[in-house]
């Protein structure tokens, strides 16, 4: 086990160079040789074409202790996958410094021997003409395990992921959820100090999702393995992580334990309100309203669903309902609940990052 933190990032950022697809209105990708010449010129740095760069991650600082499970939460495009690929050494950060499993971020060779990775659509990397078991054995043998150890480990992870009965099925015969469990099994083969899971629960039924959450929560930290797990569903991350990092547009919005983050939300409530289809309220929202989200509710009735994050107080209800009524639609339903991580993820005004 390493002495220092499993992950230590300081002001890490990633800006992707812009991608230019056309020149003077001509689609270059349809002209193979033209694209080749253009790229050759660019590679030789004879010209620099200014396409707008994309900042995927900015100023991310965090540490993760050995054996800790860190959940990374954020909407699509928030930088979760970029962060995980940086930790895996698949992407070089364009700013900042840090270490992963005790090695500087740039040491891809050292890091990749100590990291397991499940990507969102990792099932595509499975060989469909081979059985579940043969797929796993291939990756076990790839790491230099002896055939005997590869067999033992393969059977072990198949059992842990409830795939023993399906071990000899071809990958093409497995359901989506089974394939997802298979790629999870693949990540568990190597028992690396750091396990990176990028949306590992995609396609899993609730039972297997719960079983996998329990397994990640219970078994991996017990072996001293550190886990960084990303998802865009708060309840998934909440159920498995010791601490949660919330990203938005590449920036850290919150970092801390679920309790710590929820504490920061004390004094706030979420109102789920259903109204008849109406215009925008003519009045300004009352100052106690921190966030407004509205969408058409599917169905023939023409209803509008409002989700309001508001400060709790004696006049909260009346102020909010007066404001909504000014839009002209009748209020059909009101429900109050405590805010959760999902609300934090969507609300840029609520929290400041821990230590930021």
């Amino acid at each position: 086990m390493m002495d220092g933190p499993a992950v230590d990032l300081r002001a890490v950022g990633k800006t992707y160079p812009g991608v230019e697809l056309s020149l003077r209105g001509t689609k270059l990708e349809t002209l193979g040789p033209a694209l080749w010449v253009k790229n050759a010129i660019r590679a030789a740095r004879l010209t620099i074409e200014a396409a707008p760069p994309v900042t995927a991650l900015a100023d991310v600082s965090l540490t993760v202790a050995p054996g800790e499970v860190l959940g990374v939460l954020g909407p699509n495009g928030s930088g979760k996958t970029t962060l995980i690929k940086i930790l895996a050494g698949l992407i070089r950060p364009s700013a900042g410094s840090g270490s992963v499993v005790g090695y500087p971020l740039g040491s891809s060779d050292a890091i990749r021997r100590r990291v397991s990775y499940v990507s969102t659509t990792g099932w595509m990397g499975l060989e469909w003409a081979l059985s579940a078991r043969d797929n796993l054995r291939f990756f076990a043998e790839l790491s230099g395990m002896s055939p005997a150890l590869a067999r033992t480990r393969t059977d072990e992870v198949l059992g842990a992921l409830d795939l023993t009965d399906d071990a000899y099925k071809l990958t093409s015969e497995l359901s989506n959820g089974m394939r997802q469990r298979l790629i999870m099994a693949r990540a568990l083969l190597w028992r690396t100090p750091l396990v990176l899971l990028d949306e590992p629960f995609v396609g899993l039924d609730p039972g297997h999702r719960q079983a996998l959450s329990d397994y990640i929560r219970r078994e991996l930290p017990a072996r001293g393995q550190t886990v960084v797990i990303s998802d865009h569903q708060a309840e998934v991350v909440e159920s498995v992580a010791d601490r949660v990092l919330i990203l938005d547009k590449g920036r850290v919005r919150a970092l801390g334990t679920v309790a710590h983050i929820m504490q920061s939300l004390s004094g706030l409530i979420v109102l789920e309100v259903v109204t008849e289809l109406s215009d925008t309220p003519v009045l300004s929202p009352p100052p106690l309203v921190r966030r407004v989200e509205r969408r058409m509710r599917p169905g023939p009735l023409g209803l509008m669903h409002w989700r309001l994050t508001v400060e709790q107080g004696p006049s909260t209800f009346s102020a909010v309902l007066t404001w909504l009524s000014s839009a002209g639609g009748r209020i059909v339903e009101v429900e109050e609940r405590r805010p959760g991580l999902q609300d934090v993820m969507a609300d840029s005004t609520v929290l400041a990052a821990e230590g930021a």
Partner: protein
Amino acid sequence: MTTPASRRVARAVWRQTAALGAFTLREYRIWQSYRVNQIMWLTNIFVTTLLFFLMGRMLTAADAHLMGAAYGTNYMSFVVVGIAVNTFLFTNLADPYTRIQRSYFNGTMDLFLLSPMSIFMPLVGLMTKSLLDDYPRLFIVGAFGMLLFGAQFRFQFSLAALGFTILLLAAAFGIGAISASSFYLLNIKRGTEPVRFIVQQLLATLLAGTYYPITVLPRPLQWVACFIPHTYAFDALRRLLDPGANMGLPVLPVQRIVPWSPLTVDAVALGLMTAILLPLGFLLYGRGIEKARREGTLTRWQ
């Protein structure tokens, strides 16, 4: 007594060997799982050889001089060497780019680049399926040619022929690695890859002399042919294997101006090409990987 350094080297060698073994085993399992494919594979080899047998029958004794005195008089022997060598040459040259492209798009490249093996191992390991598919063609084309279509060979220079074959495969793999490097280095991810297209589909197909001696080409094109390894390999292998071939008669333009025996010219040219192309291929591929890491294009965005 072993030192820590030697143990590290031994571990690294074992790891790479194990990885190559794992690739080979996996590709063999996949290859043998497609039974119908194997029948089509054999049929394809048979038809290709038959095609040139039928074309060869059009050559009369009077036409034999077109083949050039250096390569004997049996067109089937001439063309069997061309077809056989071309099949596995095609693998070494064209396969690296195709395999890297496929594993990038199907998401396996992430896993390979995170596995404890050299970044070059996928380049070699992923080729093993094609090696299983293409290398045996050498022997099957030879067998069909000899048993069914009248091709004849002499085997007293087999060792030298093997040496030339190894040099040729190494040089071709160097070009293949350069071609694969363009996937990352020049970001060519779709369509036809230019290095492979120019060398394999343009120069080698037209100029290397797979089906005819390059002496039938205009002189400037014969000079162009001297810049690809195929030309020297075909020349050497035909001189060594075809009965009645002449070891001393120069055919290639370079052989005419350099005062060495034609086989020496072939060996030196192939050796030089290997010494340049192979390290260059690995260098460019490594640079490509590093560039892709910086730009975030190493693995497919999912």
